């Protein structure tokens, strides 16, 4: 399969992720969308590695997955704490930081 197929799918996944972050209000959904954007980037790395016959891209993917795991731990902890305090995970309800 030609490489640009993978790249198109990667771009589609990333765009869906961005759109999800921008339009959804549930913090968990937003969080999942961010994960999707990361994985879209991973897909692009893998495709590029195969195309260039170079292992660097695959190494990067491992790094991204590690960081994403750590990020999930921190992010979910924040969401849990948020729910404990405000009994909601709607990000529009969390609006104290303004003028």
């Amino acid at each position, binding site marked *: 399969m030609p490489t640009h197929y993978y790249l198109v799918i990667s771009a589609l996944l990333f765009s869906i992720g961005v759109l999800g*972050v*921008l339009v959804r209000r549930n913090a968990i959904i937003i969080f999942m969308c961010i994960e999707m954007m990361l994985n879209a980037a991973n897909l692009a790395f893998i495709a590029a590695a195969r195309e260039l016959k170079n292992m660097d891209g695959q190494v990067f993917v491992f790094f991204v997955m590690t960081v994403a795991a750590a990020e999930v731990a921190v992010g979910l902890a924040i969401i849990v704490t948020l729910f404990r305090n405000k009994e909601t995970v709607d*990000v529009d309800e*969390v*609006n*104290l930081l*303004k*003028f």
Partner: protein
Amino acid sequence: MSLSLIVLFPLIGFLINGLFGAKLPKPVPGVIASLAVLASFVVAAIGFLQVADSGAAINETAYTWMSAGSFRADVAFTLDQLSGLMILVVTGIGFLIHLYSVGYMAQDHNDPESKKYARYFTFLNLFIAFMAILVLADNYLLMFVGWEGVGLCSYFLIGFWLEREDAAEASKKAFIMNRIGDFAFLLGMMLIFLAAGSLKYTEVFAAFKANPELFSTGLVSLTGITLLLFIGACGKSAQVPLYTWLPDAMAGPTPVSALIHAATMVTAGVYMCARSSALFDAAPTTRLIICAVGTITAIVAGLTALAHTDIKKVLAYSTVSQLGFMFMAIGAGAYSAAIFHVFTHAFFKACLFLGAGSVIHALHGEQDMRKMGGLASKMKATNLTFLLSGLALAGAIPFAGFFSKDEIIAQTWHAAGGNSIYLLFAAVGLVTAFITALYTGRQYAQVFGGAARDEHLHEHAHESPAVMTIPLWILAAGAVFAGFLGVPHIPGVPEQLHAMANWLGPVFGEKHGEESANWLLLGLGAIIGWGGWILGRNLGLKGGATSVLPQNSSLSLDRVYNGTIVRAGDLLATASRWFDEKIVDGLVNGVGQMFGQISAALRLTQTSFVRNYALSMALGAAVVIAYFVSRG
């Protein structure tokens, strides 16, 4: 005996009364203060006798005050014939007035503790100390210390009843008007230093004598220096146009008026000019101006005194007028005549003021002469002493004022040999002498003569205690006899009766006895003195209810000053305020407001919706990517 002691004793009294006076029972602060001044007087008298014995001045350097490069100022005192006479007057009359004050101030019913009483004597002692410094200083700088010091004490004492609005205003006015003169004095002093390189009297005069050219190079000119010194004297000695503070100074306690605003401080200007006689002698233009100013002051103040009905105001204007006479003498180059008048005037004017204080005290604070009258029988001692010193002021022969005033007019007349305009000054002087006799006679008759005009006041009038009448008697004796120290040169008069001129001669380098007495002026003086007195007495007895001139005709500079200088000051202040509020504050506030508004606009972007922030991040990322893509 050390000359420093003369200054030190009142300073010690000042410290004791200032630190502990409020805790001492009532007559004690007054007694301490009086003793301090008496001690000064004794030391001064010993020094005076020493000078009389040896004929040489006593010099004493306490310590070097400052020394910078070629400039050097010592705290050094000198007691010569001139300063010796002045210090005797200051401490002697000062002591009598302290003594009088012990009785006068004790009756302040608003002062149950001796707080005010102690404050009064604290400042009175400080005044004597500064006056002693002024008189005894052997250089201009130290004289200036005393000069400023007496001004300060005068400010404190005029505003002694500081809860009274008029007293507070008057003290400020006196201080500010004096500062104008002080500034000129300071400038004159700087020019002297520029010319002579020293401020010590002897060195300055020696430098001038050796090389008069020094005093007319570049910025420096002798006329300028002497004029600046004279303007300084104008402020302190209440000459036109800086005299308006002195009548207002009557807001202070009456003994203060007697001591500071009649007998001693106001003569400081005359003393300073006499001290600088070596310079003034060589500046005929300045002396002409001085004589003119003195003459104008004398007649204007005399006419104003005629218009007033307040017992103290009449005496105040009379003081201004007499100071005018003294400056006439300075202007005519007759320094010993000026000092002679300072000497006699100190006696009779102090006595008149203290007598007025005694009357005011007896009438429970009433100062309006229209409500007085018929006090002669009630207050025997005050009446007689007031009469004697009044006659002295009026220049009635043979009282003290006759000789000193006649000497001044004769000397001015004599000066006409050089410049005939002095004839005019002498003539105006004669007219002023007549006016003086007129208002003095009127005042005496209105206060003591005739029948009581206010029964209630008259009923309660009583003679003052002995502590107040004894100083009156001593001063009255001076008013009667002091004149015999300067009798004109009539053949057959023993030499002792020219003591004043002979005594001061060495200081001024004057030679007297060459011009014989001017019989015309002597005769005129005798007629004017007694004639004016009798006329004034009749006026006072007859039309006692009114003053001779209507009150509002008083030739007061106050209105002119209020209309011009004070108004201009107000306008300037208003303009400055506008500038400060609108321009300066406007700029500062404007900058602040500008940033406030900018941030208010930017604040709207902080919505707190996470999606908005995410959108701006995404857009930012898109822009960055678009940029790199478009660059290829």
